[in-house]
């Protein structure tokens, strides 16, 4: 009975590992928690098989569970470190090797039979192992890694607040309780007797229950997914245990079990797909309403100047001013109208790109002189750059640049968006618009000394409505459409690409290439 329960617990762990795997190993902490659970699965499974197998084979299962436990603790430490600090950076090979060295040593001393297992015997209550001096090394490894990991987790836990804290509470409680139980029954008690070695894994039930509770309580996943996973898990458990009940039709049962795994996999995957789609739609809806807020505010800003100025003309107060000053007001109305039409154009383009993959209008494609186009963009943006005291340059490194086949209207929009951004997100310094050509391609670069794009935002910068964290802080009413539109337009050219290099607080360089 104990043995069967052990096997069930190991399956429960495997199930939780699968759950996390399906959910996506989004960050390193998740990834290492997954590995920890996989190792735990092998550990408990080994323990179960140790009790169940013949006397001769028991020693091999013991070797398996000691090695698995060693890896389990190591991955748990990794998990805790990444959990505490996501920005721990890249760990190089040497450091990985160093962290893994206790595992390697454990494998060697176990396989070489080097004073780890001193004596292996059959007692009235079952198989028993007497541990040798090398076991102290193992204990040191486990205790130190575990201690440090728990320390890191608690540290992180104390630093978070709000909803994250309530979510973490159960995970932290479950994991730590399980760890302490496992340490007591599987690490220290075996010094005296091996009889109770099976109790440790039972504490893992606490962990699994706590984590599952945290997940369901806080709606981290849809109830549909959970239900399908529980059903599949239950079915697999029954089939798995059935394999060991008696020896009839062993292979048949194994095949059924494997087929069930396969079917379960596809079932859970399809449910996941559905849940993901729903999440995606919800996200889009939220983005849409945010966009409406932003768009209405962006439209109102120039409209309020146009309306305000016109109202003063109507009331007659501007008419009393000298001619020169009156001209300035008319100029303002004109500039704000241009801006307004630009915003309307962006919004329309974005919804146009929304419905289908954008393509350039066939009939209007013609050779475009990039030099003329870039100089026009520069001239149009000059006033804004001057207002902020920024230097705006056009630099051409070659006398003659091949024309490219494009549509002037869209291409201007694509590059002007990037120059606009450069001006918007540069506080001081310069913006260079560069044009160059080599044997294969024409290259346009827009380089600024602005705030740069934070690393964590780089991957989504071309997405619709996406804005970098520092851009949001700096300039609250951007629409997040500029780069999305630029990319759609550039991608619609045959053999053209757009990419960027950026460093936060140093600047950004956009590189657009057109094959000639």
């Amino acid at each position: 009975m104990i043995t069967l329960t052990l096997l069930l617990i190991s399956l429960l762990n495997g199930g939780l590992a699968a759950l996390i795997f399906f959910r996506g190993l989004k960050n390193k902490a998740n990834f290492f928690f997954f590995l920890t659970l996989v190792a735990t699965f092998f550990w408990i499974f080994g323990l179960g098989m140790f009790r169940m197998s013949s006397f001769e084979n028991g020693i091999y299962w013991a070797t398996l569970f000691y090695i698995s436990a060693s890896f389990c603790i190591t991955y748990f430490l990794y998990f805790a470190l990444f959990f505490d600090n996501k920005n721990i950076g890249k760990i190089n090979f040497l450091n990985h090797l160093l962290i893994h060295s206790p595992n390697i040593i454990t494998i060697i001393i176990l396989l070489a039979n080097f004073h780890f297992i001193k004596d292996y015997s059959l007692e009235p209550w079952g198989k028993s192992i007497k541990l040798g001096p090398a076991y102290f090394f193992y204990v040191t490894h486990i205790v130190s890694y575990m201690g440090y990991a728990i320390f890191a987790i608690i540290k992180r836990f104390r630093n978070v607040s709000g909803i994250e804290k309530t979510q973490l509470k159960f995970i932290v409680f479950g994991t730590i309780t399980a760890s302490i139980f496992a340490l007591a029954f599987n690490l220290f008690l075996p010094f005296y007797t091996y009889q109770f070695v099976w109790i440790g894994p039972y504490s893992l039930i606490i962990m699994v229950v706590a984590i599952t509770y945290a997940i369901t309580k806080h709606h981290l996943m849809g109830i549909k997914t959970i239900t399908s996973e529980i059903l599949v898990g239950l079915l697999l458990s029954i089939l798995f245990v059935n394999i060991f009940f008696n020896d009839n039709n062993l292979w048949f049962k194994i095949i059924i079990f494997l087929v069930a795994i396969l079917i379960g996999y596809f079932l859970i995957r399809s449910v996941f797909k559905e849940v993901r789609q729903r999440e995606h739609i919800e996200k889009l809806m939220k983005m849409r309403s945010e966009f409406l807020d932003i768009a209405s505010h962006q439209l109102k800003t120039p409209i309020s100047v146009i309306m305000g100025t016109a109202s003063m003309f109507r009331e007659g107060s501007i008419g009393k001013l000298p001619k020169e000053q009156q001209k300035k007001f008319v100029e303002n109305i004109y500039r704000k109208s241009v801006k307004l039409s630009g915003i309307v154009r962006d919004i329309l383009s974005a919804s146009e790109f929304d419905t289908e993959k954008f393509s350039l209008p066939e009939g209007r494609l013609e050779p475009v002189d990039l030099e003329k186009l870039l100089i026009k963009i520069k001239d149009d943006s000059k006033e804004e750059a001057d207002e902020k005291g920024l230097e705006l340059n056009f630099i051409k490194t070659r006398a003659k640049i091949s024309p490219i086949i494009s549509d002037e209207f869209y291409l201007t929009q694509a590059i002007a968006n990037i120059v606009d951004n450069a001006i918007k997100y540069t506080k001081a310094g310069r913006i260079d618009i560069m044009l160059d050509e080599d044997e294969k391609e024409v290259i346009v670069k827009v380089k600024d000394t602005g705030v740069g794009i934070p690393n964590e935002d780089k991957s989504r910068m071309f997405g619709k409505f996406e804005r970098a964290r520092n851009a949001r802080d700096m300039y609250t009413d951007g629409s997040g459409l500029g780069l999305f539109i630029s990319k759609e337009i550039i991608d619609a050219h045959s053999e053209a690409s757009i990419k960027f290099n950026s460093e936060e607080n140093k600047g950004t360089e956009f590189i657009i290439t057109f094959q000639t």
Partner: protein
Amino acid sequence: MAKILLIEDDNDQILLYHTVFKMNGFNIISAIDGKIGLDRAKNEHPDLIILDLNMEEMSGEEVIKRLKKNPETKNIPVIILTNMDKRKFQSQMLELGAEYFWEKTVVMPPDVVKKVRDFLEKNKIK
């Protein structure tokens, strides 16, 4: 004549309101961002502050919170003049101590002057 401080980060808006207030005999000064606005409020003792909400360096919300926290500036009446949505922000701003919440596309500059004058007269400020 009453002194008005306009905290607003759009140059075109500043030009507009400067012109209309000056033509109507007011003394108007302005600040291009929230931080400068707080300094000028402290140092120049305006009779009234007209505050925009959506500003780059420091939001209008933060500005009014700080104005109302500082004993030197907490008695200066503040009027919000913005493009932000009235339905969403008005009650919050009035709670923070603003006198009125005016939308730029609804209350035109000549009306802003008129309403400011009425407010000052009603409260017997200069």
